[in-house]
C-alpha cells in the first residue's frame, strides 16, 4: 500500500504519533458485528454465535469483534438477521445521536443502512426513521438490509438531502448526517479508496457537505439534535465544514459527546492558516491507532429550543473557553434499547405468558 506524498505530508503535520497511525492504517481491520435485538434477546443470539468467540466492544453493549477472520455471510444467523456486520467506528454516530422511543429521526445519507437499522434497534421499532439516499442504486442495498433486520419504523426516500430543509422545516427530533466523504478512514478496509484520493476531491466533498449540513439543520425541530459524522481525517471535511456552519448559524450549539470506553481525540483548533470556530471544539476525532477501528469524526449539534434561542445567541457571542468538555444536560446518553422489553407485542400477550 503506497500513500501519496501529499497524504503523508498533511497528516504528519497534526498527528503526533504519526508512525503508529500509519502502522494502524496498513493493518487489516478485524471484522465487527452488531447483534440485532429486534430479532431476539442479546443472550439468545450470543449463544448461537458462541463458536465465534466474540469480544465485546467496550463502548457498545451490542457491538462485538471477531477473534479470527471469518466469512459470516453464509451463516444461518446472518440469514435470520440476528447480526449485522458493521465496523466498530460506524456504530458510534447512532450512539452520539441517542435516539429515544417514538421520536422522528432523519438519516440523510442512509445506504446501505447499518446506522439506520442500528437506530431502529435503539428505538425498538417505534416512532419514525426517514432513511434517505439520493442514489437509487444504493436504495436496493438499504431496503435489503431493512428487510433482513426486521425494521418496521423506517420510511425509505430517494431525495437530494437538501429537500428536507425546504419541505420539512422544524420537523425531526434528531438528524443523522453521516456525510458522503473522501473515506480516508476506510482505507484499512478498502485500500482502493486510496487510488481515488486527491486534495481536489476533498475540497469537492467539503462543498457538498456544507450544503447538506446547512440544509438538514433546518429540518431539525427547535431543541433537536443533529449528529454530523464522516469517515475521513481531512480537516476540510470535518472541522472546516463545521467552522463554516457555526459561523453561518450562530444559534447552533455543539455538545460534548460521552462515549465511555472509547479513546477519542479533540477536534483540531486550527489547520494551515485557518482558526476554527470555538463551537468546533466539542467535535471528536476517532483515530485508527487508538481503538483498532476505522478513522471517524463526529460532532453533536443542538438547535436551541424557542425559549432558549435568545439566550444562546448571547452565549454564542461571549462563550470564550466555556464550550470545551461541557455539553448540556441532554448529552448524557440515554440509550433507549436498554430499557425496553419486547419490541413487537405490548406486555402480556406473548404465548405462554398470558394469564
Amino acid at each position, binding site marked *: 500500500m503506497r500513500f501519496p506524498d501529499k497524504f503523508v505530508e498533511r497528516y504528519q503535520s497534526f498527528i503526533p504519533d504519526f508512525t503508529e497511525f500509519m502502522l494502524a492504517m496498513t493493518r487489516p481491520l478485524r471484522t465487527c458485528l452488531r447483534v440485532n435485538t*429486534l*430479532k*431476539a434477546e442479546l443472550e*439468545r443470539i450470543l449463544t*448461537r454465535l458462541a463458536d465465534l468467540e466474540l469480544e465485546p466492544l467496550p463502548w457498545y453493549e451490542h457491538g462485538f469483534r471477531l477473534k479470527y477472520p471469518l466469512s459470516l*455471510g*453464509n451463516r*444461518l444467523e*446472518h*440469514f*435470520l*438477521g*440476528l447480526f*449485522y*456486520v458493521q465496523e466498530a467506528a460506524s456504530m458510534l454516530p447512532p450512539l452520539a445521536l441517542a435516539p429515544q422511543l*417514538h421520536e*422522528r429521526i432523519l438519516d440523510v445519507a442512509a445506504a*446501505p*443502512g447499518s446506522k439506520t437499522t442500528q437506530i431502529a434497534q435503539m428505538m425498538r*421499532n*417505534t*416512532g*419514525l*426513521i*426517514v432513511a434517505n439516499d439520493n442514489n437509487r442504486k444504493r*436504495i436496493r*442495498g438499504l*431496503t*435489503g*438490509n*431493512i*428487510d*433482513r433486520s*426486521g*425494521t*418496521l*419504523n*423506517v*420510511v*425509505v*426516500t*430517494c*431525495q437530494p438531502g437538501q*429537500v428536507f430543509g425546504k*419541505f*420539512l422545516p422544524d*420537523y425531526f427530533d434528531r438528524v443523522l448526517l453521516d456525510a458522503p466523504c473522501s473515506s480516508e478512514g476506510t482505507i484499512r478496509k478498502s485500500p482502493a479508496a486510496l487510488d481515488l484520493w486527491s486534495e481536489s476531491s476533498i475540497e469537492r466533498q467539503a462543498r457538498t457537505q456544507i450544503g447538506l449540513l446547512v440544509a438538514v439543520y433546518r429540518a431539525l425541530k427547535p431543541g433537536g439534535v443533529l449528529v454530523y459524522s464522516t469517515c475521513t481525517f481531512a480537516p476540510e471535511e470535518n472541522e472546516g465544514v463545521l467552522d463554516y456552519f457555526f459561523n453561518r448559524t450562530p444559534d447552533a450549539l455543539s455538545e460534548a459527546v460521552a462515549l465511555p470506553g472509547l479513546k477519542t481525540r479533540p477536534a483540531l483548533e486550527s489547520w494551515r492558516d485557518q482558526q476554527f470556530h470555538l463551537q468546533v471544539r466539542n467535535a471528536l476525532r476517532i483515530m485508527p491507532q487508538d481503538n483498532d477501528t476505522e478513522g471517524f469524526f463526529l460532532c453533536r449539534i443542538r438547535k436551541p429550543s424557542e425559549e432558549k434561542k435568545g439566550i444562546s445567541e448571547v452565549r454564542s457571542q461571549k462563550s470564550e473557553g466555556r464550550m470545551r468538555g461541557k455539553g448540556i444536560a441532554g448529552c448524557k446518553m440515554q440509550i433507549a434499547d436498554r430499557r425496553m422489553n419486547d419490541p*413487537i*407485542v*405490548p406486555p*402480556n*400477550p*406473548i*404465548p405462554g405468558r*398470558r394469564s
Partner: protein
Amino acid sequence: MTTKKVFLELTRRFGFPEEMFDRWAGVEHAEDVFIASPEAQEFDQLKVVRKGLRLARIFAHGVKPTTNAMQVFGRYAIRNVLDLDSQQAHRFVQGEELQLEAAVEPGFVIVRHDGFAVGVGLYKQGVLKSQIPHSRRTGASGRRGA
C-alpha cells in the same frame, strides 16, 4: 381485502396473540400490505420508496405472508408452525424442497429452527416448498447481505 382482514387472517392461521398487530399500522400498496409503526405509516410529506416491511401479498383466495415479516412475528405463532433441525433449516434457506410429515394444515406455514423463525414455506401432502425469496437465499445462488 383490507389491512384489517390481513391481520385477522394471519392471526387466525398462525394463532398469533390477538393484540399483536394492534400497535402496528398497515400500508396497502397494490396487492401488497406493508406493516409499519403508526408514525411511519402516517408520513406522507414526501414521495416515498416504501414504508415499513412487506407483511403479505393478497391473492384471490387468500393471503401469503412474507419471510421477512414472519422472521419478526413468527416467534409468536402457535399454529401451523413447522420446526426443522439444523440440517433441514440450511437446506430450506437454500430453497430446497423437503419431504416430511407434519401435523399442520395444508398451505403457508411458518418454519422455525431452534426457536427462531426462519421463513415461510408452503406445505402440502408431505412436501415443504421453500418460499424464501431468491434474493435472500444463502449458498452458491444466494446474495450475501451488505
